[in-house]
């Protein structure tokens, strides 16, 4: 059985990037899931302190380990990335890739434990780091507002859970419980390995088998399945008051169109026209024309057939901005967009997509997400499909879009 190990050999980059993705269902213990990468990066059986591990990595000519937690569909994707210099740039005879894979394997499967428990101080320090991350989102009012709207729209669904888990869960997590969770999680779920750089396919496959094999025990399955065609009877309105200087308006729209759908490319064009770029309708009208906001964009949640339209505005401009945004959406359904706008949109997407291949991390992320969502097109193919989308197809998509939730973060003691 082939492992989900995808290798992109290229001489273009000076470094090799290895990315391991673990997809863990978000509903059960999201906070423990989020904490795992933070704790696992802190030491292994062979390198039991972070200092020892870091020094070993730096010995490998500055190899860099990075971890992240993202939410994709109903999963938390735990990322472990290792980047190191490619052979041609190392002193003659030196090579880092074997050691790199060995260390990555240890990080995932031979963590530093005390019996069947993660070390208490490591766990408490990383709980603190995770706390800061979560609070960081709370303090970033744009990010916070977007998350709140999603939480409202998906109130009783896994997707409504915050990707880093819950602050309230932290006090209940200890080294022992986390270790139990680790045993039940790593190697028990879907995993992907993506590698790009100056490497040989066979060598990477062999190293993956040798050092990471047990992670791929589960048979491969697509993960980011088509969104439900949930329809809304009534628009949900949520207002929150905080001590802020600027209001954040987030409007959640449902399209029902996801990665796997025929209309997917028409949908991307739709989003490009409406709000993905500075030339799009939202930016052009809400900011440039009416000066209501410094930023106004759409953000797609591609695994769920939903997008958010958001802007930062003065509190008193809520009604006006909301109406203006709804007008742009209505205009799209009536075909009120010109060929020039479509052309700018195609070009902007082309620039974005064709650039992907020049950025190792972004490229691997997008290939992984596409593959797990059942789409295997290369960026260049996506550009071609976008270019073939017609006005009529975009209008058809626009007619399926309807408003689900309006979230507004506003100041204290204010009437809108």
């Amino acid at each position: 059985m082939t492992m989900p190990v995808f290798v992109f050999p290229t001489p273009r980059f000076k470094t090799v990037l290895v990315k391991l993705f673990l997809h863990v269902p978000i509903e059960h213990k999201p906070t423990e899931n989020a904490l795992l990468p933070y704790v696992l990066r802190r030491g292994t059986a062979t390198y039991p302190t972070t200092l020892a591990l870091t020094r070993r990595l730096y010995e490998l000519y500055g190899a860099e380990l990075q971890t992240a937690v993202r939410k994709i569909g109903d999963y938390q994707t735990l990322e472990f990335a290792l980047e190191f210099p490619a052979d041609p740039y190392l002193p003659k005879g030196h090579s880092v890739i074997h050691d790199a894979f060995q260390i990555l394997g240890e990080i995932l499967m031979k963590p530093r434990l005390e019996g069947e428990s993660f070390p208490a101080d490591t766990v408490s320090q990383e709980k603190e780091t995770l706390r800061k991350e979560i609070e960081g989102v709370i303090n970033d009012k744009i990010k916070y507002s977007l998350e709140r709207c999603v939480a409202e729209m998906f109130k009783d669904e896994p997707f409504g859970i915050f990707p880093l888990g819950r602050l309230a869960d932290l006090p209940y997590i200890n080294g022992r419980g986390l270790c139990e969770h680790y045993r039940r999680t790593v190697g028990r779920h879907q995993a992907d390995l993506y590698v790009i750089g100056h490497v040989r396919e066979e060598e990477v496959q062999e190293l993956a088998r040798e050092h990471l094999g047990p992670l791929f025990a589960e048979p491969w399955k697509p993960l980011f399945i088509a969104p439900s065609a949930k329809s809304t009877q009534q628009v949900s309105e949520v207002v929150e008051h905080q001590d802020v200087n600027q209001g954040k308006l987030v409007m959640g729209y449902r399209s029902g169109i996801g990665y796997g759908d025929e209309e997917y490319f028409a949908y991307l064009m739709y989003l490009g026209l409406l709000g993905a770029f500075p030339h799009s309708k939202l930016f052009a009208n809400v900011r440039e024309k009416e000066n209501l906001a410094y930023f106004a964009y759409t953000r797609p949640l591609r695994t769920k057939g939903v997008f958010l339209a958001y802007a930062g505005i003065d509190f008193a401009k809520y009604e006006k901005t909301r109406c203006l945004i709804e007008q742009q959406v209505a205009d799209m359904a009536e075909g009120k967009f010109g060929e020039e706008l479509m052309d700018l949109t195609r070009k902007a997407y082309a620039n974005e997509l064709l650039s992907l291949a020049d950025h190792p991390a972004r490229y691997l992320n997008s290939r992984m997400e596409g593959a797990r969502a059942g789409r295997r097109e290369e960026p260049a193919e996506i550009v071609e499909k976008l270019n073939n989308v017609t006005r009529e197809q975009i209008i058809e998509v626009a007619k399926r879009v309807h408003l689900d939730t309006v979230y507004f973060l506003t100041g204290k003691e204010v009437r809108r």
Partner: protein
Amino acid sequence: MTGKVLQYPEIGEILHTAVLPPGLPVLVNRKPGYRETHAVFGVKYGSIDSTFIPPGGKEPITVPDGIAHFLEHQLFEEERGNAFERFAKLGANSNAFTSFVSTNYLFTATDHFFDNLSILVDFVLTPYFTEKNVAEERGIIEQEIRMYEDSPEWRVYFNLLASLYVRNPVRLDIAGTVESIARITPKLLYDCYHAFYHPANMVLTVAGDVDPERVFEHVAEQLAQKKFNPGGKIERVYPEEPENINRPYIEDHLTISRPITLLGFKDRKVGLTGEELLRRELAVEVLLEALVGKSSALYEELYAENLIGDDFSAQYDGEESFAHVLLGGETTDPHRLAERLRQEIDKVRRTGVGQEQFEWARRKLFGDLLHQLNSPERVGNLLAHDHYRGVDSFARFALLRELLPSAVDEVLHEVLNPEFSSVSVIYPKGEGA
């Protein structure tokens, strides 16, 4: 058109350079196989250059602070429309930024590179300032200044610079102040523009899969169709900066959840350019990694004590007219952190940086520098910044290989001297020392 070709086989890079009449240096780093091409067209004119003797002039003139940054905004406004729009029509992503020492206009494109390059060269060399468009831009820049005033990272940084430096203009906000930009007129903009924006005071860098010769020809042709004033030496006048710092400590309050602190060390050895500056920079960067980087014992201790987090960092900013070390981040106890850093510096001043520590740090820096080369954007920007300082960007790798622990110990003594250091803290509102 032939220029020079510099080879760096160790890192697999080639740099093509040429000087195009009437004096524009052009640097092209070809990156085969890349779809993106990044170009930077910059001028050696930054926020510190508010007093100068223009070419052919006799007396120094002083202009209000913030003109370099104002020009950065203003140049995008054209007689008909806006340069951003022109780039967008060709699917390119454009931007600009002003630093203490330079102003840089740039774009990244995956298609129509030469058409976009024409736009870049054209709009930067075509000033168009009117009372109306200057007044409009002034309003936007005012908002920008106010936005930065609210940023804790910006505030802790500029408060520190104002504490390290007594008179050097690096202590002033790059955009100026609301008051200083109120005094900027179209005439002042034109005067400064004509003094500094001459090709001999500028640079063009390109990184991506392009034919360097074609770039040289294309730009040479474009320049040949423009009229330039004769140019000449610009005499920059900087106030005399004493060795001592201004004040050892500064504190401020903002609406944030945790205190932020930044510790600074003034490097009294200034006036360096070229290889000398690059060697110093590399030595200090290795020093900082060895001392407070993730491979240092101190980092692990501070992290365990919750005195630092993942955002903790250290850097060296070295230019011809100023240089300093900055280190810090979010912390639960700014004074304790500053104390611990000082103690460690004291200790290492006595023991020196060990061989092992040095080697880990050097390899880490090597990995970081190598990683940077992957990105056309980072390379293009690096080439420009280094050009203003007379630095050969890709020489870093050979110099890093040659670096010795003794050089690192030397800069440790020269630069990390507590007598010439300052601490800046931002506390959450309601908290204090």
